[in-house]
């Protein structure tokens, strides 16, 4: 029996800031920076949004598309680097808010930008080992973030907010996950110490030995294992810290632009961290047809990659996509804000009594 994606849902905050408005504050050519990064705008959460509210919205939209009783969900994992609490799970808030509590297991995951795909693997493991001792038929993996870059840092152009949920199971599967593999090393390319508000990164070190190496190793091992080559996939999607890296790695692996472009969402909304590759995958599923093959590889600093070989099934023709916003609809509702509103929304102003 195959296992894979039963449903998915996406949520992206409405507010947008543009590179030129960030650059203007720090004496940089923001428009040129945006062009170099291939980021036209980034999403900004409202003051009353955080990784938990975004996760809940994505999860609710996932469940709207299928007739699965939330009480049948046996596990929820929420991957994020911006969980609102240091101690107290986001996953329990999601469980309650979607009506899945109390008979399930739930936990938060953290692995920079790949915590959501680790959740997908954990869910697959539980589902594939489902029996009378581990009776889990459906599991929910969520990637959700409201990531922050330090003011004036290059990350400020890309660190954005968004979330995506994938419901995994055995029945009503719209896309089989036929193989998942990972590649993990202790590579300190990006980090944030406990209690620190902003992350640090190793400048150019984040590229070659980190992002490119991990994704390449994962993708090549996956294709060797499946006996496939780039020409065997309709779509390929990679983690997107900016709009440039995924195109570079895609081409290096032998993929053509028409295989990569559908999964490229960072140019419109920035890097949604734990949701980044998964939103690209959601956009592919918005358009995919039965038989399409997808290679999806995430990347999380610190460092690791998770790869997925996905085959779209006939069930996608009966899937009620229209019950929730498609990715391109969801990201089309941008409300522009300037840098001063942005610093207020992102809690960067020290208020009286703080």
């Amino acid at each position, binding site marked *: 029996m195959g296992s894979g994606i039963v449903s998915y849902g996406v949520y992206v905050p*409405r507010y947008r800031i543009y590179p030129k408005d960030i650059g203007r504050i720090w004496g940089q050519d923001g428009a040129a920076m945006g062009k170099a990064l291939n980021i036209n705008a980034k999403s900004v959460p*409202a003051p009353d949004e955080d990784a938990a*509210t975004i996760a809940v919205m994505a999860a609710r939209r996932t469940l709207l598309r299928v007739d699965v009783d939330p009480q049948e969900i046996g596990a929820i994992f929420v991957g994020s680097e911006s969980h609102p609490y240091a101690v107290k799970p986001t996953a329990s808030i999601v469980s*309650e*808010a979607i009506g899945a509590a109390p008979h399930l297991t739930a936990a938060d995951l953290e692995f920079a930008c790949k915590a959501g795909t680790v959740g997908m693997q954990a869910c697959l493991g539980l589902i594939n080992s489902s029996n009378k001792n581990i009776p889990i038929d459906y599991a929910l993996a969520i990637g959700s973030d409201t990531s922050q870059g330090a003011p004036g840092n290059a990350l400020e152009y890309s660190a954005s907010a968004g979330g995506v949920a994938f419901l995994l199971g055995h029945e009503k599967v719209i896309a089989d996950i036929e193989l998942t593999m990972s590649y993990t090393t202790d590579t300190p390319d990006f980090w944030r110490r406990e209690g620190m508000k902003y992350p640090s990164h190793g400048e150019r070190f984040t590229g070659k030995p980190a992002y490119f190496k991990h994704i390449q190793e994962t993708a090549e091992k996956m294709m060797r294992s499946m006996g496939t080559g780039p020409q065997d996939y309709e779509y390929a999607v990679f983690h997107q810290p900016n709009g440039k890296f995924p195109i570079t790695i895609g081409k290096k692996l032998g993929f053509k632009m028409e295989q990569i472009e559908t999964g490229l969402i960072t140019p419109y909304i920035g890097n949604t961290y734990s949701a980044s590759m998964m939103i690209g995958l959601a956009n592919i599923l918005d358009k995919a047809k039965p038989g399409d093959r997808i290679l999806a590889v995430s990347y999380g600093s610190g460092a690791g990659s998770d790869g997925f070989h996905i085959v779209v099934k006939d069930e996608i023709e009966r899937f009620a996509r229209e019950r929730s916003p498609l990715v391109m609809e969801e990201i089309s509702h941008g409300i522009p804000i300037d840098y001063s509103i942005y610093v207020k*929304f992102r809690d960067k102003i020290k208020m009286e009594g703080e």
Partner: protein
Amino acid sequence: MGVARYWRQQDQRYNLGGSKCTICNREFFPSRTMCPICHRRSLGKMEKYHFKGFGKVTSFTVVHDPAPGYRSQVPYILATIELEEGDLVLGQIVDCPPSEVEIGSDVEMVFRKLSEEGKSGTIQYGYKFRLK
């Protein structure tokens, strides 16, 4: 409000959890233990009901003098919303300027942060609305 009081209201705030009279089929928000139409006959016959979260604005005001914790959202919109099922609920309308809201506007429930007990306390979540 203390942590326990918020916790007791979670179903109401997270999921518009109310009640339904199984005799006359009317829904109520917030939850009631007795139906105001069927009175004593409804005792023990009220069941839990989760409102779908869709409705129309029946009236609204724009708040310029904010409640504690809402300083960064000024000006914000508070509205009475008639839910599809018929009940009225008071809620904030987010993600739009006041000029875009009208009486009769269609809205849908969203899940947002309502308040927090300072930087070290708990965060309270619940329903707000935005234009459809």
